[in-house]
């Protein structure tokens, strides 16, 4: 029980940074004047995102499809802020999307990739989100171009709160069977979560 409570509290802590919300509201306030229909769409995305975040705190697992819907709403808000500087690619094996996983595994990685990789760069960058199966493991991967994290040269500061929480939540849910890694390859910064594929229903 203790473990479950801890996981829940870490989940709540790992939710969206407040400045993302305030930036989004600043955008909404302008869209209301400029493009009311787009403003309404954005309010819908935000409402959906907030509802999902509240609901997911109650669940131990959700489908990857549900996680994707949440990430899409999140990207909608960030797209409002970053405009054409943010583009995203989904490499999504649909046969895997009914897999059940702990909530908010992909969203914090996306938030991180935008914050450290794409937003700091004037021309922006590309976000690539993929799920696939490899050697019996389920791999969730978020990759981005743009600013380097300095993984290779060791200049990167320690993991942020969001990523530390993510690692702790993985450990609480799967013990040593799950892993999290950050790497840099050919201009991409790649965050990968590896889950024990066979232990996850269905």
């Amino acid at each position, binding site marked *: 029980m203790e473990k479950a409570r801890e996981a829940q509290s870490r989940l709540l802590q790992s939710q969206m940074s407040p*400045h993302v919300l*305030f*930036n989004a*509201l*600043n955008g909404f*306030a302008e869209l209301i004047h400029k493009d009311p229909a787009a403003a309404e769409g954005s309010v819908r995305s935000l409402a959906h995102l907030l509802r999902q975040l509240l609901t997911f705190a109650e669940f131990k697992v959700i489908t990857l499809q549900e996680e994707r819907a949440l990430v899409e709403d999140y990207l909608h808000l960030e797209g409002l*802020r970053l*405009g054409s500087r943010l583009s995203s690619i989904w490499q999504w094996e649909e046969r895997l999307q009914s897999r059940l996983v702990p909530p908010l595994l992909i969203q914090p990685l996306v938030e991180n990739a935008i914050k450290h990789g794409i937003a700091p760069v*004037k021309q922006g960058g590309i976000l690539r989100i993929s799920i696939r199966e490899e050697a019996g493991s389920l791999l969730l991967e978020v990759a981005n171009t743009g600013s380097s994290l300095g993984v290779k040269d060791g200049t990167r500061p320690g993991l942020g709160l969001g990523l530390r929480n993510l690692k702790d939540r993985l450990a609480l849910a799967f013990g040593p069977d799950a892993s999290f890694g950050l790497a840099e390859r050919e201009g991409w910064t790649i965050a990968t979560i590896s889950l024990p594929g066979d232990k996850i229903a269905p």
Partner: protein
Amino acid sequence: MSAIRIAVVDDEPLARERLSRLLTELGVEVAVELEDGTDLLQWLRSDGKVDALFLDINMPGATGLEIMAELPPSLPVVFVTAHADYAVRAFDSEAVDYVVKPVFKDRLERALTRIRSRGSAVKEGPGIRSASQGVQPRFPVRAGDGHVFLDLRKVTHFEIDVDTVWAWCGGNKFKTPWGALAEVESAFQEACLVRAQRHILLRPEMVTGVRPLPGGRCSARMGDGVDIPVSRSATPRLKELLHLR
């Protein structure tokens, strides 16, 4: 009054549009919209002229705070950001104002008032509420065997020693005619003086930075470089006057 000419610097297109539209509606001339600090410095170097800047803090490349250090000190800067937690550093850097997103017209109007009052008045630290309006701002202090008149707007704080109130100004203290801090408070009722400690009254306009201290207290850095510890009971009032929440 001629229109204030400003530059808007923000990497987010919608945020730029919003600031420009609202400021234009407030009668400001938006001379240029720029995406980041590097563009701003380049624009200023190529003879761009403005009366004030509205500057985002988190931008690609240098942050707004870093950019401010490169700017001429006479150019008023208003920071506009979604992060409330840069406020102390912003005041340290002598920003005229610090506006949090989402931004609205009434708040920008207040920022413009601060820019205008800064342009005409003596430069007096961060542009917080201009407390000296409507107040007789001069008072006599002892000088040799005569008196000179000191301007309240140059005073950082008042200090009582037994039954003498001293006015601190430019790092020196001057003997005032008062015998209690309460008399100073009643002489300048509209001046928003803050009782930082039992024996000190400080003028928030002269605070250039605030740092938290243990136990809910804080330390106020005054314009002349002196740090004054502020009691736990006075800290919320000071923060309120400095718009730090």
